[in-house]
């Protein structure tokens, strides 16, 4: 308080800038990513090559796009367990509509996007109207989507995977946006990597430099307070659910056009990976704190370990154990940071 009043400059100089950097939500994930990169680069021959890194970047990219969207949602105080199944659902809609019903591919993609956004909005409206935890509501939509993906696909096309996608008229047009790869320095970089970088950049801009970003932090941090000062809580939260669903559509398209097929069970089980990446990236499970860049680095860690384990010749089930340990470590770290930020008197 204003008892003794030393000049502001003196006191700012006392707080260490290193301490401040370390308190950023994404710092832990960035440090961990560097350590993991160095480890696999030193112990395996393939990891740090152009070909090797384009493989793990590809794996990280689609997970990363979802992790960034899920991170925004978690900062806003909610979960979306239907995000994984959504990536399969959107791809299946396009696949079935084009290969089975001969719909124009762009129209099919638009239909798929609209469906995704509607499901996202339904998630959001249900959570806001009922006041139920989003964990339960989206667990419901997750199972509904999973059922539709598996049973619906079988009913409509008698198979569990889309066939003949590449023969659909005008396939090459969207393929150029979502499925192609660039040969850079001997590596084969998929376009999804660029989408990942772009999504992370836009999400970071929105979070830190726009009004909507301020609202996202506030609805996750203290919803009642946010409403009292005039933040449109309902719109913000529903928008976040729709954003996650929209990201699910984007990833659905990336998966569909880079492999020219999609399985009926695509994305199932991935929803927890997104949440883990977001938490490793510094998001609090309780909302109100986190970062989009952190989630992107969380996904990078996932992609690197996933591929590094294979290059090292280990049983790839170790990935699960590693993810679990990372999650626990990250949660403990995040709680500590939050206490530093919120409890001091």
């Amino acid at each position: 308080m204003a008892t003794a009043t030393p000049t502001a400059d003196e006191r700012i100089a006392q707080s260490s800038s290193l301490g401040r950097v370390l308190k950023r939500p994404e710092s832990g994930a960035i440090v961990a990513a560097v350590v993991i990169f160095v480890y696999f680069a030193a112990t395996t021959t393939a990891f740090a090559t152009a070909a090797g890194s384009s493989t793990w970047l590809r794996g990280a990219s689609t997970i990363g796009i979802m992790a960034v969207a899920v991170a925004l949602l978690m900062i806003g105080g909610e979960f979306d367990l239907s995000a994984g199944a959504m990536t399969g659902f959107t791809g299946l809609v396009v696949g079935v509509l084009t290969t089975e019903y001969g719909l124009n591919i762009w129209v099919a993609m638009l239909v798929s996007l609209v469906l995704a956004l509607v499901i996202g909005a339904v998630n959001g409206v249900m959570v806001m109207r009922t006041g139920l935890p989003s964990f339960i509501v989206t667990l419901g939509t997750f199972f509904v989507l999973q059922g539709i993906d598996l049973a619906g696909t079988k009913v409509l096309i008698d198979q569990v995977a889309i066939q003949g996608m590449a023969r659909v008229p005008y396939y090459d047009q969207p393929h150029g946006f979502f499925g192609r790869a660039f040969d850079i320095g001997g590596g084969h970089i998929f376009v999804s990597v660029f989408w990942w970088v772009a999504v992370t950049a836009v999400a970071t801009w929105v979070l830190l430099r726009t009004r909507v970003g301020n609202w996202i932090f506030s609805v996750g941090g203290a919803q009642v307070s946010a409403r009292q000062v005039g933040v449109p809580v309902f719109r913000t939260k529903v928008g976040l659910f729709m954003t996650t669903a929209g990201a699910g559509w984007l990833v659905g398209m990336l998966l569909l056009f880079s492999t020219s097929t999609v399985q009926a069970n695509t994305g199932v089980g991935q929803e927890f990976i997104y949440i883990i990446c977001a938490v490793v990236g510094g998001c609090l499970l309780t909302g109100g704190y986190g970062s989009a860049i952190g989630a992107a680095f969380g996904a990078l860690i996932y992609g690197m370990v996933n591929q590094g384990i294979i290059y090292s010749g280990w049983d790839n089930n170790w990935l699960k154990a590693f993810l679990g340990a990372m999650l626990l470590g990250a949660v403990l770290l995040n709680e500590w940071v939050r206490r530093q930020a919120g409890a001091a008197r």
Partner: protein
Amino acid sequence: MPESPSGKPPVIEARGIGKRYGSVIALSDISTVVAEGSVACVLGDNGAGKSTFIKILAGAHAHSEGELLIDGTPTTFGSPREALAAGIATVYQDLAVVPLMPVWRNFFLGSEATRGVGPLKRLDVRFMKQTTKSELAAMGIDLRDVEQPIGTLSGGERQCVAIARAVYFGARVLILDEPTAALGVKQSGVVLRYIAKARDRGLGVVFITHNPHHAYPVGDRFIVLRRGRSMGDFPKSEITLEELTGMMAGGGELADLAHELERTMGDSQVVEDLKADVL
């Protein structure tokens, strides 16, 4: 009704306002005046009707009896937003701050300053940080760093940030709901000094409290509520701190209680204390 010395109507005037919830009478026949540059204290114990009264002033509930005059015009607020538009800002006990967000983001939350247009429309971070710092400094709060999470400030400082925010966004009347209730002696002093400062800047303040020792030093008028009724509306010149405390404590009712306890419990210490309080 007390008249305004300048001839200008007071910002808020209540004439016998009351509120019923179905058959429950939560508040009846409350009259008072809040002028610019003055502090009106609303005192009462739990359940006395203080929250109902401020909710009517703040626009959260409409009154069902009497008249509420804003700048001399009879008004019924339909929402807190309408009250806010009339320049009446309420600072609730929970302060409406988000603990993990920086002070400057909290200060502007819901009313963020932006620059640029279209997709490049962005927060004017520099302006907001500077404004936060200078607005707080003008009210005597010297923050080291507006980037720190507001949760790291003391209770009194957070209270002051919430008040400074309301002042900056054009409040003419501040309604403060128990601002000192959860604070220690020193922090309460900070807030009381701040209330005086807001009054000196020409704002009307409605200060809700159950502590006459906090109300008396800063108040210009005192409205004492009990069981939804007004026990009176006194200018400072007509009431002493002792009278105010006695009225707050329940006056006659408390004396009755002392007699009753005397019959059942004899001359115990509790009864002695109670008698001492009443006298």
